[in-house]
């Protein structure tokens, strides 16, 4: 039916691209945090945490999330199970 209204079915319409780009730009505008700074923050955060517990850097997910007009930094950091010593 989509063709009757000339609607593109793919997600790659210019409007969708615009929305995705805007979403990212607004997050950084609102927080004053550049993409580079966010990367540095992630690395520093991981470094500090791994001083205390063992983590798998590849499983870590740190991102900015939007809730209404509020931004939050969401970090999901799975911990590796502690290595048990003394059992051979």
């Amino acid at each position, binding site marked *: 039916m989509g063709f009757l209204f000339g609607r593109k079915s793919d997600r790659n319409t210019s*409007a969708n691209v615009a929305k995705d780009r805007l979403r990212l730009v607004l997050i950084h505008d609102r927080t004053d945090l550049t993409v580079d700074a966010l990367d540095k923050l992630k690395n520093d955060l991981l470094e500090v945490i791994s001083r205390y517990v063992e983590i798998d850097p590849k499983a870590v997910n740190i991102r900015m999330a939007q809730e209404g007009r509020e931004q939050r930094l969401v970090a999901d950091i799975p911990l590796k199970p502690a290595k048990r010593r003394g059992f051979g």
Partner: protein
Amino acid sequence: MTAKVITITSGKGGVGKTTTAANLAVALASLGHKVVCIDSDIGLRNLDVVLGLENRIVYDLVDVVEGRCRLRQAMIRDKHNQELFLIPAAQTRDKSAVSPSDMIRLCDELRPDFDWILIDSPAGIERGFRNAIAAVDIPLVVTNPEVSAVRDADRIIGLLEAEQKGPARLIINRLNMDLVKRGDMLTADDVVDLLAIELIGIVPEDEKVVTSTNRGQPVVLEDKSRAGKAFMNIARRLRGEQVPFLEMDEKPDLFRRISRMIRSGGN
């Protein structure tokens, strides 16, 4: 009577602030309210030409602030509506000629005699914007469904929040349904989703805005204009009426549907 102060602002230039200010002023006045609008874009005044009042200017905002005339002398009465007035901006000065406290004083003086004070803000986030929001009760943020206008609107909303003005309400201007249907323009929902503030109006792109502005007669006076109807609806929502949003998603007529089918090769 204690007027509410509405400031029409946007960050980006050219999104339709002055058109919105003129149309809301005329719409509110036509609904029987006493309205005064203030052009705070000192050095780049335009609200006078959009309202068709450019030939009646004697004194301006800066003359009032600097004491060269009384407030009443700078208020130009509209041609059609006895209850609508304009205080024009000065054309030969810059934004620094007026301060935020001047605007607060001015609005306090006007409040007892009016229902609404509409302030047309200049583009930008500097002094002119600060002046325009100094006394605001209801900030209206105008944007277009495109990346630069939405981004600037977000900045403005952030600044309004930081100044504890608001809550701001959103007007999406110049929505082109043909482009939206092709997936080539952000939808009104997209824009509301991104900016996350309350929507108060969606104004469709309409050639009649151009022709009516040419004549100095705001489009809200034209019965058949969809943009005019949208501006009237915003005015009614400002009064507290519950008005459903215009049905933007009009089914295209058969001819256009067929011609589109042919163009797209049935795909």
